[in-house]
């Protein structure tokens, strides 16, 4: 293999699995260290830089970081990253003077943002301080979009939403509530310099089976949750069936229990392991005695005298092949469940009835706009998309990531710059050596197991709809959980020319990541290491030829616990522990006066 090019920011960025997996690239190890030092406000600000809504995301983020966490490969369970984010938010001091400031003067550019959800709010957060005149159009009479209408209050209290959304509105954003945009054409006539569409995926999927329209007790999940949020609905029947087993289904079943349902069943078409819901949301629902019934495919609603009395399902059987893929299944029977209400939570679609199809916005075969994944611009110049409205339903953190990218594009568009000539991601490396055996980070491995989130008592929590179930980590739990972080951003950096091949690093490495061996191609090298490197998603770090024997040092990045012992045992300082800071450019960086860039290589 060729020596690893560590000057490419991507290399060390990838080693920080959590940060790499996060669409917004939040610097997770950094904020966990700040929490460990009791610097909660600093940790909050570090979060806010990239993900804008630490308090919200600390409760309801989809947490792509956690399955990626290296700790989950070294032992079973990842660091409770999301819970720690909430700790930063819960315990922060007054940070208002550290938030972005309203612009001192306008730059004369007008930008319209459609929808007051997380994507639009991120765009506003990035552009308002630069002097843009931002107008947000929102159809409902409140902000937050699906964060407010679809996530129940017992998971995400409205005060948290209000506070973090308030930080953005305080930048001088013109918010127009109860202002549904009915025509893109008309909006374009108002001569905005750019338009951003952050309208989400607001249409719940329907289930066209017999009996669907014969009762008022069959609800579409996200619409029903919205009605509950706005207090248009405050009760439900005793027996409730939820169709679908995604995260919306989990919110529907738990909300039903709080509105008077006695028995709630979540009806799943497929077996466990093929559910769309996140594991932790499933756990929380099952803790509340929600019954999850597998292998039942909806067939028809049973209506008697105009009243919904039950629902019939086909009993399914599936074959799962050795790759874990499931087939379409065969019907082996039929079963009817009595019920008073049915809630359909089988997915969401985008819907753009308000965008005329003749104004130059190209739509694809699924009737969604064609959006560039880098610039977030559609085929009509100056119209940008983000969040669920761009590429279909994802989650909040993706919407935030889209918002940041769209903000950069909008800025460049307004200043007639090339949208694709964006500032590159950078990386800083700095040694963490403090003394002979001292590092600036907590390098010892803490074998503690993952802390569990304390919950409100099972009886207590159903008394009101808005009792937040999760209590947040206690200080003791926080102290233990932060030590579980492996500090993956403290990189092992190797200087081949200093190595005397004494093997000290190889002998001390607790997880056998290091090998000195003859070079070879990657497939071959992976079999010849101290421990076979079987995780192909994790890179091999290959050095230049070593001075004494011409062999190479190979590090398998997969299981490194970043304990720094290789660097401590190295007599020549060939290994060093260096903190990598990934530099993600935002709109304000693109707008900075001193922005200089090297000419692209010819």
């Amino acid at each position, binding site marked *: 293999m060729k020596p690893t090019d560590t000057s490419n920011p991507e290399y060390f960025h990838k080693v920080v699995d959590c940060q790499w997996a996060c669409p917004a690239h939040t610097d997770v190890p950094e904020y966990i260290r700040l929490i460990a030092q009791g610097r909660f406000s600093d940790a909050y600000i570090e979060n806010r830089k990239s993900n804008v809504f630490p308090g919200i995301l600390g409760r309801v983020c989809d947490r792509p970081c956690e399955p990626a966490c290296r700790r989950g490969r070294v032992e079973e369970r990842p660091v409770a990253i999301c819970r720690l984010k909430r700790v930063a938010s819960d315990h922060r001091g007054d940070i208002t003077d550290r938030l972005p400031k309203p612009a001192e003067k306008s730059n004369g550019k007008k930008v319209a943002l459609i929808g007051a959800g997380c994507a639009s709010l991120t765009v506003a957060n990035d552009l308002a301080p630069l002097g843009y005149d931002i107008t947000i159009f929102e159809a409902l009479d409140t902000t937050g979009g699906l964060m407010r209408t679809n996530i129940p209050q017992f998971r995400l209290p409205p005060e948290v939403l209000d506070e973090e959304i308030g930080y953005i509105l305080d930048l001088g954003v013109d918010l127009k509530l109860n202002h549904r945009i009915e025509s893109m054409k008309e909006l374009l006539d108002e001569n905005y310099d750019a338009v951003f569409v952050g309208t989400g995926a607001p249409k719940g999927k329907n289930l066209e089976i017999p009996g669907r329209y014969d009762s008022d007790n069959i609800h579409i999940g996200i619409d029903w949750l919205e009605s509950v949020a706005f207090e248009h609905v405050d009760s439900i029947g005793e027996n409730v069936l939820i169709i679908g087993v995604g995260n919306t289904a989990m919110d529907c079943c738990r909300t039903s229990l709080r509105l008077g349902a006695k028995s709630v069943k979540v009806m799943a078409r497929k077996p466990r392991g093929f559910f769309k819901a996140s594991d932790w949301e499933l756990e929380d629902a099952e803790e509340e005695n929600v019954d999850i019934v597998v292998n039942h495919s909806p067939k028809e609603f049973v209506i008697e005298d105009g009243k919904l009395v039950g629902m019939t399902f086909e009993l399914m059987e599936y074959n799962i092949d050795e790759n874990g893929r499931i087939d379409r299944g065969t019907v082996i029977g039929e079963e009817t469940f009595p019920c008073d209400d049915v809630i359909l939570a089988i997915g969401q679609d985008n819907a753009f009835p308000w965008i005329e199809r003749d104004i130059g916005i190209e739509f694809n075969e699924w009737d969604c706009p064609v959006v560039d994944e880098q610039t977030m611009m559609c085929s009509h110049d100056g119209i940008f998309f983000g969040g669920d409205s761009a590429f279909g339903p994802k989650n909040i953190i993706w919407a935030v990531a889209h918002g940041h990218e769209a903000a950069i594009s909008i800025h460049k568009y307004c200043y007639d710059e090339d949208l694709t000539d964006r500032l590159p991601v950078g990386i800083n490396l700095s040694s963490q050596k403090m003394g002979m*055996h001292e590092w600036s980070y907590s390098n*010892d491995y803490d074998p503690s197991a993952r802390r569990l989130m304390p919950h409100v008592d099972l009886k207590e929590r159903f008394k009101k709809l808005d009792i937040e179930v999760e209590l947040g980590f206690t200080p003791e739990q926080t102290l233990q959980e932060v030590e579980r972080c492996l500090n993956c951003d403290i990189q092992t950096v190797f200087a081949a020319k200093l190595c005397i*091949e004494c093997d000290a690093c190889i002998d*001390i490495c607790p*997880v056998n990541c290091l090998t000195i061996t003859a070079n070879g191609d990657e497939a071959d090298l992976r079999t010849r290491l101290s421990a076979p490197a079987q995780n192909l998603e994790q890179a091999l770090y290959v050095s230049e030829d070593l001075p004494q024997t011409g062999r190479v040092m190979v590090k398998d990045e997969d299981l490194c616990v970043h304990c720094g*012992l290789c660097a401590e*045992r*190295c007599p020549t300082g060939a290994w060093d522990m260096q903190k990598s800071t990934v530099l993600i450019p935002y709109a304000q960086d693109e707008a900075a006066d001193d922005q200089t860039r090297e000419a692209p290589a010819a």
Partner: protein
Amino acid sequence: MSYISKPKVAHPGIPRNKLGLTVRDYEGVISTLCAGCGHDSVTAAIVQAVFELNVEPHMLAKMSGIGCSSKTPAYFVSQSHGFNSVHGRMPSVTTGANAANRKLTYIGVSGDGDSLSIGAGQFVHAIRRNLNMCYIIENNGVYGLTKGQFSASADIGSKPKKGLPNQQEPIDPVSTALSLGATYIARSFSGDKEQLVPLIQGALSHDGFALVDVISPCVTFNDHEGSTKSYAHTREFYHHVVDADYIAPAEEIKTQYDKGAAMPVELHDGSKIILRKIDDEYDPTSRAAAFKYLRERFNAGEIITGLLYIDDSRKEMHDLMGNIDTPLAQYPLEKLHPGKAELKKILARYR
């Protein structure tokens, strides 16, 4: 040394031996030697060797004297027996232990100072007795613990960090052992575990005195230009002459060997050592030929490594003396102790 100990976390796919133990179970406390010390690599080689040999930790006794090398036993197999003796006296303490219990596996770790100066007499007599032990010399040519004075194994012309080059003849433990009739003599290099691990395994399985002389550079006082025991010098001048593969009892020989070059030697416990001659002329079963070859190569400035001499036919100490098999601790007291009356008779013979 390090302030944190080696984390207990291990690679999830870490292999287990026949006892269900992992290599991590054979580790000791974290080393307090200088970072980069060759001795730590020797420690790692010992750990690997006893792990692969399925040695039960409580059936292992690790013995040492004084010096950097003699700290080594603290760094492997924490759950075995150990004795850190007086300077140079490891061989006689091991003799005593072995006399009382021949069932244990004895591994002595010594250095060039401990074995070739203050303990030279002890060293040669342990060989003469053919004491059943694996005797490892971590050979770096200097007294590291007292700031790097030359030891008895320093080569003529080797330069110290400060001061004048060495002028005195070195004592070569391999030639010494050969002249004294040791029955298993090997030399290796701390930076070459592929060679060192099977040599230690052979030495542990060999019935009788087994010497493994390991060039183990002192990274602090003897790893500079002009030193003949540095990592760089050793790598430049060392040659494999006879490599050894250790094959456990009842294990199949999986590697294909060339007929001429491979010599299988069966040990008393049923294990085999396959000698692979790199230099065809070399005969590791002839003392005279080995001696001649080693002197010639030594004079040419080469460092000859491998299993240099083996003779598995000679009796070890207990068999020479006709001792019983049972460890004395397990032998009934009435048989071990002749009784007052009998003792009186014995004493009377000396009056």
